[in-house]
């Protein structure tokens, strides 16, 4: 019943021994711990209703309900690897759904690799899949996401800075783009939870302490905005993100931009062969 712990000099992360889900992150430098949960959920894309014939599609995110369904109710098989370079927890539901948390020995962040898709539509329903992180941070309906990996934009739930917003879509109306970095802050505790992503996607914070990241979308109707095809994405996505839990400080703010660039500009390995010894080859 003891939690599984991945730890290095910088952070300590606890996971459930029952299903491998993340439970908490401790920043060992500051000594602060935050409870955190993560779940995969899916929204049911609209195919039109009495209010409007507007379907969810490439241009339009329009879920039928304000709530989302659990994407996978099954308990995954969990495997753990511990080593000098990295330790990892791999949660395997199926070949279409795999999540790996990886902690490198020299890293102050937790890496999460997610394999999702192809999305099952055998029930005749499209699905828009979201990864939702829920923390104990008090965020005052505010979150931040970047513009082109540079300027961070302040986002406030159900609010626009330049006009009076009439809320007609409480879920999708709060989804905004993220290109590299999204975070939530608890100013009173001076705590911040940051997600660095390797690709552009949508994000939202619909409740205090939450950060939702859109993962994969498969809709079965054209949204009628010019594409002329449903967004029937049949592919598998393999994505890598970095989770950073730290205090609000200038050091931290300048720290996650290199992390984002590291994801968008990965190291490039090139290979050759030799029969020489390593000393001779060098």
């Amino acid at each position: 019943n003891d939690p599984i712990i991945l730890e290095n000099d910088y952070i300590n992360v606890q996971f459930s021994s029952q299903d491998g889900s993340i439970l908490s992150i401790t920043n060992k430098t500051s000594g602060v711990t935050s409870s955190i949960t993560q779940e995969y959920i899916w929204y049911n894309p609209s195919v039109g209703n009495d209010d409007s014939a507007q379907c969810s599609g490439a241009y339009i995110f329009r879920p039928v309900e304000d709530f989302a369904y659990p994407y996978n109710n099954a308990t995954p098989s969990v495997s753990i690897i511990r080593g000098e370079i990295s330790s990892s927890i791999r949660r395997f539901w199926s070949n279409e759904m795999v999540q790996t948390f990886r902690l490198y020995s020299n890293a102050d962040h937790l890496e999460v690799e997610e394999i999702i898709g192809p999305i099952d539509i055998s029930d005749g329903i499209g699905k828009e899949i979201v990864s939702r992180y829920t923390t104990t941070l008090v965020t005052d309906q505010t979150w931040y996401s970047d513009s082109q990996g540079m300027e961070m934009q302040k986002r406030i739930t159900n609010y626009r800075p330049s006009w009076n917003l009439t809320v007609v879509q409480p879920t999708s109306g709060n989804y905004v783009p993220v290109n590299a970095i999204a975070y939530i802050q608890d100013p009173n505790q001076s705590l911040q939870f940051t997600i660095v992503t390797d690709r552009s996607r949508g994000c939202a914070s619909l409740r205090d302490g939450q950060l939702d990241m859109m993962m994969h979308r498969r809709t079965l109707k054209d949204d009628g905005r010019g594409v002329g095809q449903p967004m029937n994405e049949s592919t598998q996505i393999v994505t890598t993100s970095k989770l950073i839990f730290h205090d609000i400080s200038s050091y931290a703010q300048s720290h996650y931009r290199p992390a984002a660039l590291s994801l968008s500009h990965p190291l490039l390995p090139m290979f050759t062969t030799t029969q020489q010894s390593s000393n001779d080859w060098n």
Partner: protein
Amino acid sequence: VDDIVIMREVMGIAQHHDAVSGTEQQHVADDYAERLSIGNCASLETINTVVGTLLTANGNSKSAAATPTISFCPLLNQSICPATDPLSSGTSVPVLIYNSLSWTRNEPVRIPIPIANVTVTSSSNGSITSQVNQINGTFILEFLATIPPLGYSTYIITSTASDFVEPNSIPAIIIQDEIIVSGGGKINEKVSY
């Protein structure tokens, strides 16, 4: 320069708002992907040529045989990497890691390898710590690389195994087109896969 122009033109095409936002029809998306792939391969060939030339200039340039042929492996996210296959026959595989950012990076490198027992040697620090993870019959080599800004570092992967596997620790290993099924402490049979 001609090879780089290919990628430059493709990136120009991909600035169309449909390509940026993903609001194109599927056959157009496929066309973008193919063009980007062609440009990507051309650019990587250019890097291979440049790095190969730099190695020759810095190393033993007296004989043509000493000039290494550098290749990029586009399958590093797959379970088997053709570039590291020579390890299974005892041939060492030097890896050159290029850093496209303008600061020194100390980052982990993950490379699929065909065998479990290898050592990694740094060109400057000798043998370094490495780790091999087995995931679904695939071996993933991990080590921490230090690469200068806009430069490259060299690491050499060398097989340390004799030509047998330890069945107790490795239940199933996919080797090229065969799978060795083991159990009960010894290799039972080799079947085609």
